[in-house]
């Protein structure tokens, strides 16, 4: 592989967002110095545009869509059953971490007492979180979902009542993180 090929690889990686900061910087620097490299970059862009412009949108037939829908309908109950435990396990785990982190934030408040709710949640979670993490969570069933929602609701009330500014922002971020993991 010659030097130019290596630079073309860097250009391709750069287009795909695969370059590290340092290599991106080095490429920018080379592009400023080397006109033929800039021409190469332009040429790659033109090719990309041409190929994309020439590619018409091609729909799939209704028969194909119907078949996919039928399979999706057939599979949904099994998938639901299989996933319910793992989804809850991870959501609950995320909630546990969030509550613990939020409790830490609350405890670090310079003024005012630590709310009892935070301590209760924190202590309850600390007792069982480290032990057989997956095994415990895998035993959870649907009704824990309500428990989880109530946990989030408690935490949000707590945040609104007890926090402000950066603390509140951080806690809210943690809660949102817990909901989306």
């Amino acid at each position, binding site marked *: 592989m010659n030097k130019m090929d290596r630079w*073309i690889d860097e250009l391709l990686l750069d287009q795909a967002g*695969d370059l590290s900061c340092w290599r991106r910087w080095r490429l920018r620097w080379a592009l400023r110095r080397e006109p033929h490299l800039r021409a190469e970059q332009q040429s790659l862009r033109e*090719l990309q545009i041409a190929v994309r412009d020439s590619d018409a949108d091609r729909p799939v037939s209704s028969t194909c*869509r119907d078949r996919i829908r039928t*399979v999706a309908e057939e599979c949904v109950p099994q998938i639901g059953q299989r996933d319910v435990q793992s*989804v809850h396990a991870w959501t609950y785990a995320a909630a546990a971490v969030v509550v613990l982190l939020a409790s830490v934030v609350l405890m670090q408040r310079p003024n005012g007492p630590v709310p009892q709710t935070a301590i209760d949640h924190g202590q309850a979670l600390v007792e069982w979180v480290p032990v057989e993490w997956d095994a415990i969570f895998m035993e959870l069933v649907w009704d824990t979902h309500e428990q989880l929602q109530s946990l989030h609701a408690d935490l949000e009330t707590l945040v609104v009542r007890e926090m402000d500014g950066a603390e509140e922002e951080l806690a809210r971020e943690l809660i949102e993180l817990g909901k989306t993991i």
Partner: protein
Amino acid sequence: MNGEKAFLDRYRRGDVAALEVLVERYRRPLFGFILRMIDAREEAEDVYQEVWIRAIRHLDRFDSRKLLSWLFRIAHNVLIDRSRRRRPDVSLQDETGDRRSREEAVATPHATPLEAAAAVDIQERIQAAVQRLPADQRSVFSMRMDAELSFKEIARIQDIPLNTALARMRYAVEKLRHELQDEYRALGK
């Protein structure tokens, strides 16, 4: 991921329409890729269907990273399975039905007949040149161009080293540039 996790969660809870949103969202890159690899519409639809059916049946194995990458991985495997069992790719010229629909699709409504014919001609030539690439180069090229996957993702999907993916792309680009000098300059402007 544009809320794909939320759609998958809704599907897991029984909302089939949520899955259909994802099927439609990823149709163009996924079906486009399969068509590039097969170029026979009916067979491409079979593969497309098989990819989604495998994905739906094994949704519990999906690790919530990026659905499109996972779908491409499945498509890659399905295509490999097929190519081991079957004949080589059908040429573009053999697909008269598909060719006609493609011409209809690329003809612009406001162009004069002459301009429309020229546009169709250029786009046809570009598509044909892509189609003439060797399958391994075409596969990398299409994943990058049609689906905008990164090279790291492509290498992971195809189970090849990153440098191999890059080399295949570089060869593909060189061939296309050589074949399409006039066309891509005309379209790029």
